């Protein structure tokens, strides 16, 4: 028997509630004291198609899904067709007997058939066919021997807004399906779940953690145009705007969105725009405006596969070099690429501090995998008392003391000019996207142009010293070193755990602070690497390119994935044999 270590997969059409059911089941598992990693996979359509929700459960913290499925909950025949090959021997499929499942296919893989009349139970107990998904969660709990308490509590919470009768009918459906599965299949399934005593934990996604970090940093203005997978950040902040005093603006397009946050940030408000790569491309010119006029803005790019529309709902890390080089000309910017849900929270507030300190755009480069994936986090993992640093911001008292005309873009040793917010009689000034003098007035003088470029670009060097060293994970002295960034970190952690368990010492160097690249810290972290392998979810190995350009270090191998599907530990381990 195998306890508290398995993977569930819910599959169905868009419109069957796969995502909400998967998330509800995941929440029940967390309330049962278990850890998990959950990830949804869906098509860019509202009805039909094939969507699935995968939950890997364990009784320790885990950072990724893997490719082996233990229990498949099939609301459609396609779910079985697509995912049977992922099932491990001894696994099981819960399905409605109305689906034409070929039991011999299951038997050929030693997979058990757990036929449960989901639809009949839904209709008889709940009165609505849609509740088949609730029945599936009840049946799943029954098959695995998990108590029904946590599932009932989630049903109560999730359906409360829809009223008591809906709560009660869903409860009846869950109980009936649970009872059916227990009566018929108890003991047949060797993968068991058992609730554990644990402190309360949050089930939270990267997008939600990032938005929470931004809110705690005092982000007060958010403008955005919906684009998957960045829009949940806009929606989250809009949903909390009234209670927490945030102005959110669904703008007419991404160009408007970034220019709105530039206007807001110029006035002194912490402002953010969330988007994905295509929206970011539209923002490129304005990114340079913020760089030129030294306006602190935060832009979040939640990546999806490109180019162009690419795969709207899928996974890739193809925008790294674009973030670093986007827009005409040269100007300082900060790029943070979180690789975990905790790091999404951290990036959410650090970006504001860095943007204001260096008076330049700060970009958070997340991706669809982080955006959607769920993990169970202890409450104290996200410390809401985040540090706030507004940089060289002049107070009214400072401005009262001014004896000379205020210079918005004054030359200083750090290149950072003390910032006055418009509205004070002692600091009436202009700023211009044209090259300008220290006062902000348009100026075409050649010598001044050099001074201004030097001033702005010097901020990048000052910022570089502050950028954090890479995160290191694994066997400290290992000479097999994986270089990675972003969401590839999670699956890579799982792969490195396997390697270390198998006696192949390995470690990870993950760079979150990708720009300005902390060259010395990265070089130090890579000391002792005899085999350096980059793991990236893109075609060309963009971090490896950056590493070589700025440190001269060349990777020995490159594990890359660009099929739009999530990175997995199995994929990394299989490719490792080919690249080294």
């Amino acid at each position: 028997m195998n306890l508290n270590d398995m993977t569930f997969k819910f599959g169905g059409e868009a419109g069957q509630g796969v995502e909400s059911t998967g998330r509800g089941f995941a929440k029940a598992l967390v309330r049962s004291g278990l850890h998990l990693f959950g990830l949804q996979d869906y098509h860019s359509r509202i009805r039909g198609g094939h969507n699935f929700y995968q939950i890997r459960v364990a009784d320790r913290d885990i950072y990724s899904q893997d490719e082996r499925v233990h229990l498949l909950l099939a609301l459609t025949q396609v779910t079985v067709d697509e995912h049977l090959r992922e099932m491990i021997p001894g696994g099981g499929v819960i399905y409605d007997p109305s689906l034409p499942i070929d039991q011999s296919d299951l038997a050929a893989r030693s997979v058990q058939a757990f036929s449960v009349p989901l639809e009949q139970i839904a209709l008889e107990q709940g009165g609505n066919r849609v509740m088949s998904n609730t029945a599936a969660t009840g049946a799943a709990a029954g098959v695995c021997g998990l108590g029904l308490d946590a599932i009932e509590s989630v049903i109560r919470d999730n359906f409360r807004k829809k009223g008591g009768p809906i709560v009660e009918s869903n409860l009846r459906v869950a109980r009936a399906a649970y009872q059916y599965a227990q009566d018929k299949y108890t003991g047949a399934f060797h993968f068991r779940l058992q609730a554990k005593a644990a402190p309360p934990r949050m089930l939270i996604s990267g997008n939600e953690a990032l938005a929470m970090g931004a809110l705690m940093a005092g982000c007060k203005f958010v403008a955005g145009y919906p684009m998957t997978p960045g829009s949940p950040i806009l929606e989250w902040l809009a949903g909390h705007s009234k209670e927490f005093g945030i102005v959110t603006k669904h703008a007419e397009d991404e160009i408007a969105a970034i220019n709105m946050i530039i206007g807001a940030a110029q006035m002194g408000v912490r402002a953010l725009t969330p988007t994905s790569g295509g929206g970011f491309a539209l923002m490129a010119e304005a990114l340079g405006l913020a760089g030129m006029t030294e306006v602190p803005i935060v832009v979040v790019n939640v990546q999806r596969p490109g180019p162009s529309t690419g795969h709207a709902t899928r996974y890739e890390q193809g925008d790294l070099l674009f973030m670093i080089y986007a827009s005409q000309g040269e100007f300082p910017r900060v790029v943070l690429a979180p690789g975990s849900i905790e790091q999404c929270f951290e990036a959410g507030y650090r970006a504001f501090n860095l943007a204001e300190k260096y008076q330049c755009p700060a970009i958070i480069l997340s991706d669809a995998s982080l955006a959607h994936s769920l993990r169970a986090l202890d409450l104290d993992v996200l410390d809401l008392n985040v540090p706030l640093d507004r940089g060289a911001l002049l107070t009214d008292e400072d401005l009262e003391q001014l004896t000379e005309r205020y210079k918005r873009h004054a030359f200083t040793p750090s290149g950072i000019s003390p910032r006055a917010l418009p509205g004070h009689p002692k600091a009436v000034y202009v700023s211009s996207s044209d090259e300008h003098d220290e006062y902000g007035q348009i100026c075409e003088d050649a010598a001044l142009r050099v001074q201004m470029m030097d001033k702005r670009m010097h901020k990048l060097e000052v910022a570089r010293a502050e950028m954090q060293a890479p995160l290191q994970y694994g066997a400290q002295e290992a000479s097999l070193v994986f270089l990675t960034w972003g969401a590839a970190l999670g699956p890579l952690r799982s792969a490195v755990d396997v390697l270390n368990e198998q006696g192949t010492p390995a470690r990870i160097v993950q760079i979150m602070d990708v720009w300005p690249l902390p060259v010395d810290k990265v070089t130090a972290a890579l000391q002792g690497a005899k085999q350096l392998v980059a793991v990236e979810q893109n075609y060309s190995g963009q971090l490896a390119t950056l590493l070589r350009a700025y440190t001269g270090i060349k990777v020995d191998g490159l594990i890359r994935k660009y099929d739009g599907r999530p990175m997995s530990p199995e994929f990394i381990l299989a490719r490792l044999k080919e690249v080294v």
Partner: protein
Amino acid sequence: MVSVKDYQSAVRPTWCVGCGNFGIWNALKIALSDVGLAPHQVMLISGIGCGSKLPDYTTANGYMSLHGRTLAVATGARLANHGLKVVCTHGDGDGYGEGGNHFASTVRRNIGIVDIVQNNRVYGLTKGQYSPTSPKGFVTKTSPQGAIEEPFNPLAVAIAEKGTFVSRGWSGDIAHLAWLIGEALKHRGYALVDVLQPCVTFNKMYSYDWLRPRVYKVQDEPGYDSGDVTAAFVKAQEWGDRIPIGILYRTESVPAYEELVPALAAGALVKQPLRTKAAQDYEILKKEYL
């Protein structure tokens, strides 16, 4: 007491001698001082183009942004600090061409911005190409056989989109234009001030001599009611021997966008602290995920 001199700057304009921008610039300074706004209480926002250089020549808070993005920047600025009077100055290419989507959206948004569009019906700073408001048949370097498109009608569009202050000024009549901008400054929501402005270098067609005898003030027309949207829409179509200037349409009964945003009820956003609640009041954010 605020005076026009408070808005003077040591920086001299680079506009051509006779440029209509001088009239607009002077009228704006008169209007701002007449309504009693000091330079630090005003935020001038422009884009790129000859007219968009106006903030560089004026003592007031100013931000010269990108071509076409004036209204988007101004929207963010206004929502961040509605304690300041936000005034945009940009040309017809900036406002109606590159920024057309922002124009359409800002009118509907009815946000408290005074939008002065320096409409010379040609591209000046890029040296004489046809603009969205150039007439059909207008011959320029990019329309050598004459422009094929119908000209953009900003007033009709603004009225159609429920604009709450739709007006046209004329840079050759500074007193009238100063009055018009003054009324726009007193308006609650978005105020469009489209200003007919000769480009003495690149638009020989719409000269002072051509425009001056044609413009007339709608407010002087007996019986003209600027609260009548149908009459205003008809008036917005008038172009030729007679060209109406003044306030074509105005209503003060529609709240400005910023009046309806809950977070702004507590005052200007920029004046609110980064964290408005006690530390424990944020812990509920985590509880959503239990």
